[in-house]
């Protein structure tokens, strides 16, 4: 990339003067680590990194303090006395109404919602993307355009019609219903990603497979799938974070005993009993964010690669 060359700019100009003095060999190669340019570069990055890290730091620190300490100290000071009480409370004891089992129940509910929703939505979107990219037929692009415009429609607008559709199908309030809702709303962006990705694969592969006699599904499973790891990772991350973090559908399309973690979080945070227990709130927040964060940390590198492959090419 460009960058190798630009890195050297400062160094080279620094030495330019000395080399003009004589035709002989110029001086020692200047040290580059503390070049002003590097200081600015890393300085800027570090400042930006601090801005991004600060909230995380505050969350962690606050969640490890007791309430008295929070009331006295400032939010940035490290805990004088580390306590895991808030974590325990957030996970297992915090109450919403009569239920005092914290986030733990919501966690498993979330997992139960997450797994089928991610699997189904990715499966359907990847097949649609594949059909769009490789098996173009009349009207396909029209449906796709509608889908893409659909990505911009505020969810609130769609809630009512969906309630009606699910009611007519008789699956309102069931896990199936929620999975369908997540699939629907994941569809536009995922289909776009998959379509772009499959379109970026060499079309000859597809042609070769057809000549070899493979049909729609054989090509999908035996040729396309094994080549699509990066985009599946992107889709997975998007869906895991999206579905895990979803609040609106979780609250509208489930019932209290199957509330996902975010709803539980909202309940805990908003069920103020006396004073706001910031430490418990922060612990609960961290616990809720943990799953997408872990998924992201583990596969972030593939995410960036996949984004480059699927999103940026239009």
């Amino acid at each position, binding site marked *: 990339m460009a960058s190798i060359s630009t890195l050297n700019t400062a160094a080279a100009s620094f030495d330019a003067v000395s080399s003009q003095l004589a035709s002989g060999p110029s001086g020692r190669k200047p040290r580059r680590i503390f070049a002003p340019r590097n200081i600015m570069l890393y300085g800027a990055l570090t400042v930006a990194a601090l801005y991004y890290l600060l909230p995380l730091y505050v969350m962690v620190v606050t969640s490890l303090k007791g309430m008295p300490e929070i009331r006295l100290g400032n939010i940035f000071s490290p805990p004088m006395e580390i306590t895991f009480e808030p974590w325990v409370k957030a996970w297992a004891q915090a109450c919403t109404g009569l239920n005092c089992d914290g986030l733990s129940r919501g966690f498993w509910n979330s997992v139960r919602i997450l797994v089928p929703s991610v699997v189904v939505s990715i499966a359907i979107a990847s097949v649609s993307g594949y059909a769009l990219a490789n098996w173009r037929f009349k009207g396909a692009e029209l449906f796709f355009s509608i889908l893409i415009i659909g990505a911009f429609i505020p969810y609130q607008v769609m809630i009512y019609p969906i309630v009606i559709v699910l009611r007519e199908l008789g699956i309102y309030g069931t896990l199936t219903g929620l999975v369908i809702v997540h699939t629907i709303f994941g569809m536009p962006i995922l289909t776009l990603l998959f379509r772009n990705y499959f379109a970026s694969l*060499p079309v*000859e*592969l597809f*042609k*070769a*497979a*057809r*000549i*070899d*006699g*493979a049909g729609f599904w*054989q090509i999908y499973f*035996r*040729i396309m799938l*094994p*080549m699509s790891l990066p985009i599946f990772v992107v889709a997975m991350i998007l869906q895991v974070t999206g579905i895990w973090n979803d609040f609106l559908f979780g609250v509208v399309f489930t019932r209290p005993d199957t509330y996902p973690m975010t709803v539980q979080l909202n309940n805990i945070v908003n069920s103020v009993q006396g004073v706001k227990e910031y430490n418990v709130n922060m612990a609960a927040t961290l616990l809720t964010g943990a799953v997408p964060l872990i998924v992201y940390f583990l596969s972030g590198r593939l995410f960036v690669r996949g984004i480059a492959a699927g999103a940026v090419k239009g």
Partner: protein
Amino acid sequence: MHNTVSIDKQNSVSIRDLSLSFGSVTVLENLNLDIHDGEFLVLLGSSGCGKSTLLNCIAGLLEPTEGQIFIKDKNVTWEEPKDRGIGMVFQSYALYPQMSVEKNLSFGLRVAKVPQAEIDKRVARASEILQIQPLLKRKPAELSGGQRQRVAIGRALVRDVDVFLFDEPLSNLDAKLRSELRVEIKRLHQSLKNTMIYVTHDQIEALTLADRIAIMKNGIIQQLGDPTTIYNRPRNLFVAGFIGSPSMNFLHGELTKNSDKMVFSSNGVSFSLDGYDAAQPLQAGRKVVLGVRPEHIKVNENLGPEVHDATVDIEEPMGADNLLWLKHAGHTMSVRINGARRFNVGTPVKLSFDMSLASIFDAETEDRI
């Protein structure tokens, strides 16, 4: 549209009145082509002229807008690719990256549920023919370009097809490998005797491989013939200019009568047409283009009766040959001479032209006279 079409029994592939448009863009128009059994036919043309489109139609990967395609006397216009008895080799190899070479070769057979013993036999035979036995366990990423292309050919080979389709199979290889694989493909054809249809924009490949060449431009076949005919008797200006490197020298001028003999004159210089084998009577006053290939001009040696003066403008030594760019009566002309003969820029030289190997085209219709 014809209602009945007669097809020569010897033909392996017949294309009748084929048209294809993408939306409003017509890529192929009313194309007819018969390819004989066992023939090596090369489709040659510049980029975007519709070669791949035609090949994809034959393969069944594109659906023609109009027309019919017959393979081995069977109308396959609406058949699935796999049912047409064709194998196809792509420029980008199109190997399945996640499968080993062996799996790549056998994929089509496995899809067709051929018994394992049969699969093994065919893979063994193909890999022996192509000498890729040691590579069978490798993934495509672990192969060189040439090896990949060999595997791609193998994939068509195992399927025991009647017709091989090649879409610029060698253009991703470097010059050296290209010439090696060219020889191998030629050898393969000599031993298998299948029908092969080969798309390329490289005239050397076309000239060396083809039994017949079809030269295409804008979706229309300009000339169909064996390489020698195409090289020596191009049917029109386009074919003449397209084949040969460096290009044929073209001189614009007109036919005039000079003491009973017809001559070509241009920029005040006249060329005797002795030895030219005209397809049509030559009429004085007709505006024409004279085409002479660089190797058909003699410089300072073995000069014929008519001698022209020129000076060396640029010299391009190319090892075995030496290419001279000469200034001659306001034209620039390229001449190919033996690589051992060298000239300095600015040297005056004498030329003579071999009219028996030249071509004359009507300036208007651009067709050969």
